[in-house]
């Protein structure tokens, strides 16, 4: 909880500092971009969080964004398919890929890193193959045909909140409930911490792991569609490059441990917001060469602070317990 408060304050601090140096940062236009893209990236980061909490990793999310986007564009442009039907088809396709990962990881006991690394290579090249290395554009048609542009550019009246951010909020709330209030969430955390103990408690660990990869693929697919719509163009070579790393970074900044078992959805959302805000701030202040340095250092500092705090809390707890138990011993 404390961590989330700190992250929250950090969002305001970065905003204040940047806006003071570059007033355009606080413009409505800029805020809208940040809000929209936080929504898009955040959905992906939540997907990454499910897999990370289960003790796994998905390195193929960026390639997934490219493949899903390309397929989506092709289905609309070349097959003249209804965009909503196209969405359903590409999302089912994405989840099947997640299912494949899950089966390889649970049934063949392959390492998630290796499986999804291969996925990263394969999905990207499939995207290039399907698109014949060409950009697919203009599948969002405001004039004539089914208009789906509203999915990223509609805003809540009066409040001006862009739809992708609303979608993120809904997905975050549902995910948070799933994680904290359902057996699925409890089992996911248990198996992320100790797969063996979870299995020995009768949990169907294979199925839970597979589900996590499917959820992750679904989230990557949803954000892929929204990215495609927002840009009205998908380049099979550029789309989604490094997005898996942003998603993992946001999850880690938000408190997920790559050892599995821990993580809060609110933290992941705040982590994404900070990363997007930093990115935008760097662009506005015009030193984009150092973007990687700034973001890398911020994540590193975050993780170091986290570790230090954890140790301090741990030491205090041990001390308190030593005292408490000696009292129990004295009274018993």
């Amino acid at each position: 909880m404390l961590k989330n408060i700190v992250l929250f304050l950090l969002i305001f601090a970065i905003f204040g500092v940047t806006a003071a140096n570059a007033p355009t940062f606080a413009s409505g236009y800029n805020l809208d971009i940040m809000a929209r893209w936080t929504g898009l990236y955040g959905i992906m980061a939540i997907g990454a969080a499910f897999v990370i909490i289960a003790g796994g990793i998905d390195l193929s999310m960026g390639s997934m964004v490219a493949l899903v986007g390309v397929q989506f564009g092709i289905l609309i442009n070349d097959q003249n398919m209804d965009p909503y039907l196209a969405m359903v088809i590409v999302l089912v396709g994405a989840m099947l890929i997640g299912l494949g990962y899950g089966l390889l990881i649970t049934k063949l006991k392959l390492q998630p890193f290796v499986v999804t690394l291969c996925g990263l290579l394969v999905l990207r090249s499939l995207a290039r193959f399907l698109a014949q290395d060409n950009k697919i554009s203009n599948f969002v048609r405001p004039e004539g045909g089914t208009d789906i542009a509203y999915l990223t550019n509609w805003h809540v009246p009066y409040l001006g909140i862009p739809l992708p951010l609303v979608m993120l909020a809904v997905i975050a709330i549902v995910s948070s409930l799933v994680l904290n209030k359902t057996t699925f969430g409890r089992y996911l955390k248990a198996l992320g911490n100790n797969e063996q103990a979870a299995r020995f408690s009768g949990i169907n660990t294979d199925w839970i792991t597979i589900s996590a990869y499917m959820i992750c693929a679904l989230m990557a697919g949803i954000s892929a569609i929204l990215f495609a719509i927002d840009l009205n163009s998908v380049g099979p070579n550029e789309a989604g490059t490094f997005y898996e790393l942003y998603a993992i970074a946001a999850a880690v900044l938000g408190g997920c441990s790559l050892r599995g078992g821990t993580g809060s959805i609110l933290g992941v959302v705040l982590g994404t917001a900070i990363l997007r805000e930093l990115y935008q701030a760097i662009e506005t202040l015009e030193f984009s060469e150092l973007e990687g340095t700034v973001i890398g250092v911020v994540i590193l500092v975050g993780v170091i602070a986290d570790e230090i705090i954890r140790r301090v809390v741990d030491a205090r707890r041990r001390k308190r317990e030593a005292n408490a138990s000696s009292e129990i011993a004295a009274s018993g």
Partner: protein
Amino acid sequence: MNPAPVPFLEVDQVSKRFPGVKALSEVSLQVGVGESIAVIGENGAGKSTLMKILAGIQQPDRGTIRIDGKPVEVRSVTDAQRLGIALIHQELNLCDNLSVGANIYLGREPRKFGWIDQAAVNANSRKYLQQVGLDIDPRKPLAELSIGQQQLVEIAKALSCNARLLIMDEPTSSLSAREVERLFGVIQSLRADGVSIVYISHRLSEVHRVCDRVVALRDGQNSGGLSREEISHDNMVRLMVGRELDQFYAHQSQTPGEVVLQAKSLRTHAHPGHEISFQLKAGEIVGLAGLVGAGRTELFETLFGVHPPIGGTVEVAGKPVSIRSPRDAIRHEVFLVPEDRKAQGLVLPMDVGQNTSLPGLHRLSFLSWIDHGKEQRLIDEMIERMHVKTPNSRQIIQYLSGGNQQKVVIAKWLAMHPKVLLLDEPTRGIDVGAKHEIYELMEELARHGVAILFVSSEMEEILGMADRVLVMHEGALAGELTRDQLSEESVMNLATGQKLTAV
């Protein structure tokens, strides 16, 4: 044996406290030059803490350690090495993938121009290997050696650091009878060279053979000592347990009910060449004895579906069942309290409550939605029933003592109404009080018709708690002993592969 006027090692009133446990309280002991003493005590009596302090792995809170009469501080393993103290762990600390010589000199490689001086490694290693009676090429990969030989390599390694005191923690637990003899021979010759031995073993007959003196610990305190002439099984047990055995193990046999678990020609993945058949009746407490590696845990893991059987059948309550995963076993109300509670029994970073409710959570939920009120009521009930000492159910379980952790592992299954309970080393590493509570719980469950099969390496526990005992040897069921056939000797005979002598 002429004990030197100044003992090599003196431990003077050493105390050590851990969160939740007072592990050692003013423990003292002395070891003379070339002397061999046994430190005995039940699990949780403080033996391993004391040894870790001597080996520099842990630091005492109070007390003094003297070597050759001079007070010393053993702050690290390096300190201990410098002082000539070496600990031979129960689990060997060697690297399978390296050669024997490389293992002996790991971290202390002799160097020549910055490169490892391979010739020196081999020549010196050979010398120390010979000292422990091993005539092997130091260039041989360690993985090609038997466990007994690897143990001797570990001793050679200690000697190469000029060790003057060897602490051996259960050195024979995975050795064959011949390897044990060889080890004893090595111990004798080392003592003749002036090396002192601290010997820790549960096998009291070995203590009698190897040691000059016995120091007993109980509940973290000295509970007495025995001179060479006084060493006897009964005396040792009296010092360890502190009361007569029949008081400690309040076992009362029940009239057994129906057969609830029957294994017919069961073959486990670990020992597919042996067929195991036995039955278990409601209300029975049956011990499963055998040496380490005899296949007891593997049998449990097969019954619980961790490794599905290679062949044979299992019947629960008269009906053949297919158990291919722990979920299957749990569905048939066959539950396992595993040997390694931290790795297999508990999710350490989760709290006491969440661990307790884990296997039965689906029964406390509707459409996957957890009924937190119901869950909490179950948790509170179990904490109270099992006397789990915890500030509250939100306590992270890794901060509880071993005994309380084990109670939670058992509580997980109690809430699910077991038909068959498999307990693998149920009292390993827990204090005497918690041990007693677990015995009482086993009794209570048996009274309510639960069939209990338990694995134990502690002879006293097997003798004290079981209605009958199944003994395993090298993957096969070597025999079965009824309560009136039970003795340390009859169990050990079967466990070491000898035929049961006429009773």
